[in-house]
């Protein structure tokens, strides 16, 4: 790693952590329905929405009513996006006259954007009309993120409250998350992005003459290039902030019109983890002990920094195959050095690995470099990070509630180790909680490993693997790991827009979002009813360095142990074959 690289990583982390407290405190006010500086502007809008939707914002609901509301809202969103794709040729804002999207791809995309995965089997500029992008995808970018935040708010109340039944009102949390948090941040970010050169228009694609003419695959002369246009900035801002990651253009933030400058790159990277990190502080405020929030943030940050260091080191060290050929891969004044395959020269190694690590950590999935082209260990970092269950920052809301499930498992075993029935923040952890927590940690590996096995058994799955061998194995594993964790980033190197992958992937995304959200709410519903267990000298504190270390160990053991054999057949063996 170069000094410059370390400096950039440190700078990124410092800015991120500095923003946690102000944003986290603000979000706590939003969830607790306290007054914020945005109230004069947004209060009337909020009340109008409640009147329009006939919602009584003061009505509290139990976990079941909230779960039903969450599911209903998402099913409707799913159908709207599906219909928009299937009917876009009859609808306005389609200057390129793009036709209907295939049913399997429409299904996959509808699930993908509802579940905050934003896996894209399609190429944006060649598939989706502006209307589909704006009304379907951008809207889902907002509300799928808000759904995650609302579920988290309900879950936190389950921990903050005692001897009660209700968790709050999903509709209110959804509305307030969108209105007070996502919308203002997205508007600010979109304006800055436009200033940096990200396009925001409804014009047809333009065509320009090439300065340097070239030939295509068939040997024909190419003299002009078509440049895709569209309302990109508004979608890019929320795709980053809401841990969506679905690019406006096919190559996502590697595209110059989606991510033109170092500043836009830095801000886009920052937005990926900003809300997820700040929510830790929000959690601390809401449970009345900010140390608890900092402890979770510390655990997440330590895992992130270690894996980021591994990835950066692995990429900066370059490709051993090139080293054997005598190619100079050292960083110098003239080159960034390292493994530059699949990376933008504009960003270099460090800004690519920071992006790759945080986008994977935060279940965002947007990319500014191609993970398929990473060195085996660099690629493995992205796989491992997802296989931890997207709890290192993770999706907005969903990452933190996922982490809290690990906390419950960690607290359970730690409680036994000190000879007490386990408790977390005054709630006894009993068999019902363990049942739900076990279900939650069980489903993800089952889905990912099961579907990967299916893909490798069926010809339909094997047919579109571009690089057979250990790397091809990694590609299939990555595909299902990404969708099975609602990440949505693509390794690449595999033809994923096939009925087989669209359907199985869609199922993986449905399971990992909703099958997890419902037991999570059930768990909150059980915690909220418990009597407060007061803290005594025998209580195991959950904010100490020792507990943070233990939590990290649990996350890694539960996550990594399950996938170690699979990783051995993919990136691990690939690495050893490359270095030998």
């Amino acid at each position, binding site marked *: 790693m170069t000094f410059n690289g370390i400096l950039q990583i440190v700078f990124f982390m410092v800015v991120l952590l500095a923003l946690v407290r102000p944003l986290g405190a603000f979000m706590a006010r939003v969830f607790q329905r306290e007054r914020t500086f945005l109230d004069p502007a947004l209060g009337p809008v909020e009340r109008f929405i409640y009147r329009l939707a006939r919602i009584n914002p003061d009505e509290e609901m139990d976990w079941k009513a909230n779960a039903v509301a969450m599911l209903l809202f998402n099913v409707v969103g799913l159908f709207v996006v599906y219909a928009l794709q299937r009917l876009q040729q009859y609808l306005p804002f389609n200057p390129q006259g793009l036709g209907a999207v295939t049913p399997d791809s429409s299904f996959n995309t509808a699930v993908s954007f509802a579940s905050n995965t934003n896996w894209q089997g399609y190429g944006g500029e060649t598939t989706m009309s502006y209307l589909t992008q704006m009304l379907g995808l951008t809207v889902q970018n907002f509300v799928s993120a808000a759904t995650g935040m609302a579920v988290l708010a309900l879950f936190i109340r389950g921990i903050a409250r005692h001897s009660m039944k209700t968790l709050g009102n999903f509709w209110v949390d959804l509305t307030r998350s969108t209105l007070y948090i996502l919308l203002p941040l997205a508007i600010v970010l979109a304006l800055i992005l436009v200033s940096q050169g990200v396009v925001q228009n409804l014009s047809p694609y333009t065509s320009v003459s090439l300065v340097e003419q070239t030939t295509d695959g068939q040997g024909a002369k190419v003299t002009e290039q078509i440049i895709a246009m569209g309302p990109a900035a508004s979608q890019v801002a929320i795709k980053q902030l809401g841990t969506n990651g679905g690019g406006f253009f096919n190559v996502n933030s590697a595209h110059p019109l989606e991510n033109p400058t170092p500043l836009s790159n830095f801000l886009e990277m920052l937005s990926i983890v900003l809300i997820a990190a700040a929510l830790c502080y929000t959690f601390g405020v809401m449970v009345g002990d900010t140390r608890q929030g900092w402890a979770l943030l510390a655990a997440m940050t330590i895992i992130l920094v270690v894996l980021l260091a591994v990835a950066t080191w692995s990429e900066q060290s370059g490709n051993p195959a090139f080293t054997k050929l005598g190619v100079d891969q050292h960083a110098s004044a003239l080159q960034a050095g390292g493994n530059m395959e699949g990376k933008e020269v504009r960003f270099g190694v460090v800004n690519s690995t920071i992006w790759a690590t945080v986008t994977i950590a935060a279940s965002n999935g947007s990319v500014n470099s191609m993970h398929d082209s990473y060195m085996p260990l660099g690629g493995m970092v992205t796989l491992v990070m997802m296989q931890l269950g997207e709890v290192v920052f993770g999706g907005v809301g969903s990452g933190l509630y996922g982490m809290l499930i690990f906390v419950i498992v960690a607290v359970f075993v730690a*409680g036994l180790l000190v*000879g007490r029935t386990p408790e977390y923040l005054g709630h006894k952890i*009993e068999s019902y909680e363990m049942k739900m927590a076990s279900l939650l940690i069980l489903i993800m590996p089952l889905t990912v490993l099961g579907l990967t096995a299916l893909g*490798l058994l069926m010809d339909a799955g094997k047919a579109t693997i571009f690089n*057979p061998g250990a790397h091809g194995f990694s590609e299939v594993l990555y595909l299902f790991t990404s969708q099975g964790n609602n990440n949505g980033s693509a390794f690449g190197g595999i033809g994923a827009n096939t009925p087989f992958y669209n359907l199985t992937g869609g199922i993986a995304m449905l399971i990992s979002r909703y099958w997890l959200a419902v037991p999570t709410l059930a768990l909150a519903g059980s915690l909220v009813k418990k009597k407060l267990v007061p803290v005594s000298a025998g209580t195991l*504190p959950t904010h100490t360095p020792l507990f943070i270390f233990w939590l990290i160990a649990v996350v890694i053991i539960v996550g990594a142990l*399950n996938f170690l*054999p699979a990783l051995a057949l993919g990136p691990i063996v690939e690495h050893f074959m490359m270095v030998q």
Partner: protein
Amino acid sequence: MVTQTKKDEMNTGTQSTQQLKKPVGLTSGMYRRAMVDSIVKLNPRVMMKNPVMFVVEVGSVLTTALWIQALAGSGEAPAWYIGGVSLWLWFTVLFANFSEALAEGRGKAQAEALRRARKDTTAKLLKKPRRDSDFSLVSSAALKQHDVMLVEAGDIIAADGEVIEGVASVDESAITGESAPVIRESGGDRSAVTGGTRVLSDWLVVRVTAEPGGGFLDRMIKMIEGAKRQKTPNEIALNILLAAFTIIFLVVCITLLPFSIYSVQAAGQGTPVSLTVLVALLVCLIPTTIGGLLSAIGIAGMDRLIRHNVIATSGRAIEAAGDVDVLLLDKTGTVTLGNRMATEFTPAPGVTKERLADAAQLASLADETPEGRSIVVLAKEKYGLRGREIHEIAAHFVPFTAQSRMSGVDIQPEGKNGRRMIRKGAAEAIKAYIEEQGGSFPPAVHQTVQDISRLGATPLVVVENKNVLGVIHLKDIVKGGIKERFAHLRKMGIKTVMITGDNRLTATAIAAEAGVDDFLAEAKPEDKLKLIRDYQKGGRLVAMTGDGTNDAPALAQADVAVAMNTGTQSAREAANMIDLDSNPTKLLEIVEIGKQLLMTRGTLTTFSIANDVAKYFAIIPAAFASTYPALNALNIMGLATPQSAILSAVIFNALIIVALIPLALKGVKYRAVSAVQLLRTHLLIYGVGGIIAPFLGIKLIDMFLKGMNLS
């Protein structure tokens, strides 16, 4: 009367006063029996209750089938190797069964001893609930609730019951192991009798309170044998987590087959991973160490309680004991020695200490209460006054009565006039007594009385005729070492609250001396109940001990309620534990046993999961050796061959269960330190140790196999 003629006949069974208290050690007979039991327990219907070990059993059957196939000449690997893996998988199951059988065996031996005490006896069923009523001889099995029976000296009490008439000394060693007889009498707190115990002197009329087969002894036997042992809440929660791990690893291993098939196709070399290896990997990964020992840990926890002479009516109570935050302790017998002791004589003005001591001793000669005896002893030790026999000095003893609230002696010296009437009693009673006789109570003595009260002690005023001689200082003696124990409890986060009927002044002084966190003075039974409810409302778990009938509501309310075996039937029924030694301090041990139980589960779970790291390093390179030789870089232990690597991992996995049986049975040692310190120590030993140990163990086994040319 038929009593005499039938007496010998009814004495059968008296020799069975086997002591429970003696820890039943592990005899070779128990080992043999456990070995047989571990094979009996292979019955799949029994195994199914333990999902982790059931998976191992299925794996054993599967590999046995593969071994037979290999013997027939069409195996996926050499027969010796599949057979070796299969054999050790069977051992894994058997070792787990053995640990459970061994833990049960101890209980069974104890139950056996009790069952001998419960032998059918003959009861004298009374027609009317009076001693002089006619009776008929019936078998104890025929006794029903509410029947009334007569028990006389030498008889075995045929069923649990309540004394409604009579006083007798009873030998309860059959259940308590305590050879000293206890007094049972009608009314009051000592009216409960237990079936199987023997009346030594006098007689009792007893109303049967238990249905046949539902008596105390029966319940105890069932409890010890584990027939009624249900999984406790925490055990259920842990089982769920272990089952989840098992399912995950099952999927990990099943999906490894298609992964391997694809890899073979893609790499163009090698053979897919064999079923034997997959089963071996699965068994090594699932938490067999804790899964195999979990049941033994629970039984051993119950067993440890029994060896402390405490019978729990449910495993739930033991677990709750580990969580207790508040201990309510009766002052008398728990915080202080049961009795107050005389520590000093303070004479009235113009009276010598010797005269006071002499009078005090005379007044106490016939007083058989511990206080009385302590006065005699004090006078002897301090002033060399030898205790005299009361008949030598022609004295007449005046016992304590509720009316007079005094006791003493009247002495008629031979050939002399003037009776000496010595009395001792509470200040007010004495004051009333001498004022009645025209005497007066000196203000200096009044001051002494007040001073003593303020110190938390009890003053007893001694008077001869109408002259006040002085005050005896009776003090509550705080038990030795109790202060340190309370300090330990405080470190563990447990609050101690002393309950006493004494006034605030006295209570404050004793509380300070004993180092309890809080106290409740002038406590009535209903205050106790209210205190418990208040603590529970605040989310705390409360433990208490009690023996009297008026303790029953509080016992029923407390989360951990320990009744003294000498207590009343209602107290024993309201409690969820019974201390056969009737030692209230036992509560402290009970809490530690509860914590030990949870800690043993936690440490073995951590150890079990941490072991997986090394097993991966042993098995993965071995499993894919033919497809990806490059993976041998992961073989950091340098295991000889793929076969020896897998065999070593499986053997280690089985042996570690045996190695940990003593720990499971004994429990992790409890130390009173803070939760953070405990967690740190246990993570270091069982977490980090759990990662390192198998690396060493597997390597050693591999070296051994290599040496034996088995690789």
